[in-house]
């Protein structure tokens, strides 16, 4: 293995992308054996599996790019997934919003996947070869996830009065968290300049067009809100996040080195 050149900025960016995938995968896994139908149980876990695979590659890359710590140890995907505490996770808040009912889960998925398709499309040309490699696969997976979320949002939004009401409620619940996906900070300024990161300002119009088209066809209303919760990228998380991490990390922390 050739040593990877240490690059702290890109390491943090890979960690953000990896945490997004890992945390959403964990939320989707909560549906195991609880989805409204068997086929949907399988579908949600397949989505989670794709995301988990992306997370594994991205966290590995983040560890390599961060380089060895003072003891000479490079953190592995497992170290990063299982041994960090809440303030060290830098996923967007939308990924950790509680799944709620099936309507809210699908509204969240629509907003995430509609962002990931242009994100991974742009990142397939990233100057970081590790991120570009993940993106080339992830773009196909995200497109399939988007199709799935779209079909459920249409079916439930333009379904019965009750399914419409619940999907609209779920959408209203998750909508404010989407704004954080398009925030830009000093790190992104530097990485966009270097051709490593995708420019959030360029992703937003495509995201908005995709989401608005689906919502219009689903007879749903685009929520109006001025509330823009933020902080996930800086390690500030929602109340339920500690519980999510406890479930994710408990086994590994209680039984270090456990294998199947």
């Amino acid at each position, binding site marked *: 293995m050739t040593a990877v050149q240490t690059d702290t900025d890109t390491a943090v960016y890979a960690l953000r992308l990896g945490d997004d995938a890992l945390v959403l995968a964990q939320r989707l896994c909560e549906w195991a054996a609880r989805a409204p139908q068997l*086929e949907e149980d*399988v*579908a949600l876990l*397949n989505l989670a*599996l*794709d*995301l*988990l*695979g*992306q997370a*594994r*590659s991205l966290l590995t890359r983040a560890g390599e790019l961060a380089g060895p710590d003072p003891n000479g140890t490079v953190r592995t995907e497992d170290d990063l997934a299982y041994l960090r505490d809440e303030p060290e996770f830098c996923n967007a808040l939308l990924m950790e919003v509680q799944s709620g009912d099936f309507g809210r889960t699908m509204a969240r998925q629509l907003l995430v996947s509609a962002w990931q398709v242009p994100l991974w499309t742009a990142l397939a040309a990233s100057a970081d*070869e590790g991120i*570009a*490699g*993940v993106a*080339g*696969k*992830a773009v*196909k*997976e995200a497109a*399939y996830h988007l*199709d*799935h979320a779209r*079909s459920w949002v249409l079916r439930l939004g333009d379904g019965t009065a009750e399914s419409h009401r619940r999907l609209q409620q779920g959408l209203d619940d998750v909508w404010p968290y989407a704004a954080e996906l398009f925030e830009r900070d000093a790190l992104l300024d530097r990485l966009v300049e270097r051709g490593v990161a995708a420019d959030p300002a360029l992703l937003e119009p495509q995201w908005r067009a995709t989401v608005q088209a689906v919502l219009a066809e689903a007879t749903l209303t685009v929520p109006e809100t001025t509330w823009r919760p933020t902080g996930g990228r800086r390690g500030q998380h929602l109340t339920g996040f500690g519980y999510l991490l406890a479930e994710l990390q408990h086994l590994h922390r209680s039984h270090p080195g456990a294998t199947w």
Partner: protein
Amino acid sequence: MVTTVREVLATVTDPELPVLTLEDLGVLREVSVDGDEVTVTVTPTYSGCPAMDEIRADITAALAQHGYRATVRTVLSPAWTTDWMSEDGKRKLREFGIAPPGPVLLQIGRRVSCPQCGSADTEEMARFSSTSCKAMWRCRSCREPFERFKEH
């Protein structure tokens, strides 16, 4: 030497689709041999496909049986596509009861034939199935359900 290593690798199959060798599946990128040291480069099918861990272990074990010390490298780019599956692999899938993938660029409106009776009167039941790579379909002629390897 390379031929022998290739022959050994030809016996390694996908643990979830045992009719397909790694070559049929199109995940084998490169094989280089230096004495008894072999480096095998593979490309995963789906990001989270759990079969890939098994495949890496199987490659190392199969080569070790023939006295080779193998290192398996994973390369993500360019991304694997079902277009890399061999024609032989597609035929074996059909015989196994799984509808094989068609060309990725021609998938819109493409008819999927039933692997049991060959009828094109088929429909999708679910977009996901037992593994990342498949969807659930059924045949309206013979009434049998079947799995379809998705274009990817």
